[in-house]
C-alpha cells in the first residue's frame, strides 16, 4: 500500500508500522508518542488500518483530549482510499487540498487523495523537501523528524522496499502474451503474487486500437474490488509495466509518457513510432459534470443542466443558466477550475492545480515530488522557489517562501508584504508581486455571467 515514506529532518517524531504513518510534534509527551507507536504497531498490518486508527483516536478524543495543544497526525489506508486524522497545529497536503484540524474541536478526520504524495508537518511550516527518486525510506520504527511525506504504491508497481528485496525476475521463455481479440471486455484477476498489498485488483482489458511491435498493448480499467468507491483509473499497459495512468473523463494522451527515441524522428512514418494512442473521439456537447478522479470534492450547487457551481453563484459559469437564489440543496462534486493567473508577460495559467512560482522552480522538491507544477517567472529579485499558489476548497491561496512576496488587492493602494509561510487567500483581481514580476488572479467566480457588459 505504501511505496515509501520520507522523513523531514527536524524536531518531532515520525512513526511507521506497516501501512500506517504518524507524526507527533516536539511538544508531545513520551506517553503520547508511546500510545501512537503502540497503536500503529497493532493496526499497521491491516489494509483498513487507517480507518481503524482514526476511529480509535476519534473515540478517545471525543471523550477527552489530554494534550489539546499538541500537534499529531496519523494516516493510513481504508481499502482503496486514504484516511487521516489530524490534531492540533498540524497540516496535511495531498497535492490537491489541505487538511487542517477543525479550530473548534481541535482535530479532524478525513479522506485524503495523495496526488501523488501526502505531506504532513506542523501548521504553517513549508512543505517538507522530498524527492520521488530519493532512496530514503522509513520502513518501520520511530525516528526524529519534523514531518513526513508518504508515497502510496501505485497499482501494479511493487513498493520501494519490495523492489529492493526482490530478486531479478527470470525471463520466461515462451510466455504467452496477453491478447484480446475483439472490442469485448475481458476481465482477469491479478495473480496473488502480483497483487498490491492486500488489495485485490481487477483489470478489465480492452483491445488497443493500435497495437504494434512485440509489446502487448492493452488499455485496462483498474479497479479495486475492495473499494468500489475508489476512483476508476484508465491505464495504458505494456507487457510488464504500467506506462501511464490518466483519470476517466480526461483524454488519454498516451503519446506523452512513452520514451521517444532521440531525434531526428521521421514523422512521415508514425507507424514505426513507439507511442500508443487510444483514439477515442472527444465527447460532443457538454453534459452534466461527472466526478473527476484526482480532483478534490467540494460543496457546490448544481445548475439545472448538472454543472457544479460555487455556492452563491447566480448563473452557471459554464452554460449561463440562471441558478435560483432559493436553490434548496447543495451537493458535493469535483471542484471545477478556479480561474487563471495572468503574468506581466501576458502568459495565462490555468488554476486547476497548485503552482510553485520562481526563477527555477523545477528544482524544488515540491515540484519534483509532484505536489505543484512549476511556474517559471525569471526576473530581478525572483527567488528560485519564491511563492506557492495553492487551491483550497473554492479559494486560491498564496504562500510566500522567499520573504519578498507582496499582494495588492482590488480597491486598495498599498502593497501588503506577506509573512513567510503564512497562507493568504487571494481576492479575485488581486495582484501578486514576485520580486519585480507580477501575477494577477482572475476568476469567473466573482459575479454573474448574465451581468456581462
Amino acid at each position, binding site marked *: 500500500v505504501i511505496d515509501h515514506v520520507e522523513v523531514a529532518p527536524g524536531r518531532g517524531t515520525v512513526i511507521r508500522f506497516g501501512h500506517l504513518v504518524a507524526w507527533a510534534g516536539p511538544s508531545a509527551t513520551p506517553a503520547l508518542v508511546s500510545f501512537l507507536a503502540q497503536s500503529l504497531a497493532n493496526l499497521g498490518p491491516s489494509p483498513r488500518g487507517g480507518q481503524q486508527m482514526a476511529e480509535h483516536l476519534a473515540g478517545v478524543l471525543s471523550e477527552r483530549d489530554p494534550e489539546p495543544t499538541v500537534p499529531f497526525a496519523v494516516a493510513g489506508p481504508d481499502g482503496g482510499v486514504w484516511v487521516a486524522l489530524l490534531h492540533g497545529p498540524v497540516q496535511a497536503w495531498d497535492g490537491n487540498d489541505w487538511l487542517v484540524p477543525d479550530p473548534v474541536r481541535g482535530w479532524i478526520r478525513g479522506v485524503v487523495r495523495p496526488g501523488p504524495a501526502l505531506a504532513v508537518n506542523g501548521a504553517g511550516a513549508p512543505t517538507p523537501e522530498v524527492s520521488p527518486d530519493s532512496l530514503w525510506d522509513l520502513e518501520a520504527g520511530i525516528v526524529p523528524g519534523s514531518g513526513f511525506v508518504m508515497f502510496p504504491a501505485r497499482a501494479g508497481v511493487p513498493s520501494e522496499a519490495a523492489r529492493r528485496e526482490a530478486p531479478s525476475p527470470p525471463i520466461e521463455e515462451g510466455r504467452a502474451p496477453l491478447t484480446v481479440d475483439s472490442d469485448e471486455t475481458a476481465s482477469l484477476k491479478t495473480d496473488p503474487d502480483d497483487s498490491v498489498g492486500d488489495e485485490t485488483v481487477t483489470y478489465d482489458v480492452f483491445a488497443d486500437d493500435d497495437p504494434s511491435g512485440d509489446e502487448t498493448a492493452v488499455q485496462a480499467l483498474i479497479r479495486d474490488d475492495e473499494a468500489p468507491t475508489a476512483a476508476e483509473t484508465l491505464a495504458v499497459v505494456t507487457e510488464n509495466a504500467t506506462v501511464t495512468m490518466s483519470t476517466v473523463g480526461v*483524454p*488519454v494522451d498516451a*503519446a*506523452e*509518457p512513452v520514451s*521517444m527515441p*532521440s*531525434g*531526428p*524522428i*521521421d*514523422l*512521415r512514418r*508514425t507507424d514505426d*513510432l513507439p*507511442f500508443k*494512442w*487510444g*483514439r*477515442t*473521439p*472527444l*465527447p*460532443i*456537447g*457538454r453534459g452534466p459534470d461527472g466526478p473527476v478522479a484526482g480532483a478534490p470534492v467540494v460543496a457546490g450547487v448544481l445548475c439545472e*443542466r448538472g454543472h457544479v457551481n460555487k455556492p452563491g453563484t447566480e448563473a452557471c*459559469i*459554464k*452554460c*449561463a*443558466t440562471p441558478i435560483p437564489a432559493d436553490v434548496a440543496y447543495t451537493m458535493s462534486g469535483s471542484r*471545477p*477550475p*478556479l*480561474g*487563471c493567473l*495572468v*503574468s506581466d508577460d*501576458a*502568459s*495565462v495559467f*490555468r*488554476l486547476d*492545480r497548485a*503552482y510553485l512560482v520562481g526563477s527555477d522552480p523545477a528544482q524544488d522538491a515540491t515540484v519534483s515530488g509532484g505536489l505543484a*507544477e*512549476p*511556474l*517559471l517567472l525569471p526576473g530581478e529579485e525572483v527567488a528560485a522557489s519564491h511563492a506557492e499558489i495553492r487551491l483550497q476548497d473554492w479559494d486560491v491561496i498564496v504562500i510566500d517562501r522567499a520573504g519578498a512576496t507582496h499582494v495588492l488587492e482590488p480597491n486598495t493602494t498599498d502593497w501588503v508584504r506577506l509573512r513567510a509561510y503564512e497562507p493568504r487567500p487571494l481576492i479575485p*483581481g488581486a495582484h501578486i508581486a514576485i520580486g519585480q514580476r507580477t501575477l*494577477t488572479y*482572475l*476568476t*469567473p467566480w466573482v*459575479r454573474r*455571467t448574465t*451581468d*456581462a*457588459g
Partner: protein
Amino acid sequence: LRPSVADFEVVAELAGSAGRPRYLCNPPDRLDLRGEQVMVTELAAGPATWSAVAGRLAAFAAVGSDNLLRLLEVGEDPDPDGLGAYAASEAPAGELVAESGTLGTARAARAVAEAAMGAHALHEAGVAHGSISASTIHLTSRGGVLAPPCVDCPDGLVARIAGWRELETVDPDLFSGGLPSRSSDIWSLGATLHGLLSARPLHPGIDGDQPVTAVQRLLFTNPEVDPRLPRVLADVISSCLDADPAARPTTAAVLSELILGATEDR
C-alpha cells in the same frame, strides 16, 4: 538570421508562433524532398521534455488528415543559441494567413472551413487543439491546413497573449480554467474567421498590450460580431461564440459545412 537549424539551411524568416521562431529552409538531402522548401519551427525542448514534445508531434502527425499541416521531422537542435529542438513541416504556399490581412472573404472563409476539417479530424482522434488562430492556419497547395498547437508549452499554460486578435480566439472558458474541447476549438475557429474578415475586435476597446484587463473583458463581456459582415457569415460566427457551448455547432465538421454554405449563398 540563423544560417541553419540543425542541417536545414535557412532561406528566410517567417512570422513566429507562440514565441517560437519559424524559418523557410532548404531541407537536407536525407529527407529526399527533391528541392522542396520546408518550414522549420524552433521548439523549447531539452532532454527532460524531449519525449513529451516529440510524442505530441507524432500523435498529431499520426492523425493523417489532408487538412492538417504535414509534419516531416522532429529533431534536436545542437546549436546552443537555439531552443533545443525543431520541427520541420511542409511550407506554406504563400504568405502565412496571420500575415496576409487581405485574403478576401471567400478565400478566408474557405481556409477556415478547411482548417475546421483538420480540427474535426483531431477531435475524432481524441485530441483538442486548444490554440487555433490565424497563426496556426496555413495556406498550402492543398488549401487551408491546421498546424499543431504549442507542443512545448508548460503544463497549465492557457495562452501567451500576442495582441488582441490572438487573445480573442481563446474561448473564455479556458480563461476560467476549463480544458480545451470541441466547443472551445469551435469558438476559436469562429473568432479566427471574424478576425480575418473584420478589422474590428469582437470586444470593442480591448487592448492586447494590457493582458489583465483584456482577459477580464473576455471573461465578463459578450463578443459583438461586426455588423458590416455578410449576415449569413455573421450568423455562423455568432453561433460559434455563444456563451453556452451547447448552442455552438456540434462539431467542427458541421461548422465547416456552415461556413462553406454561407460563402456559397452570397
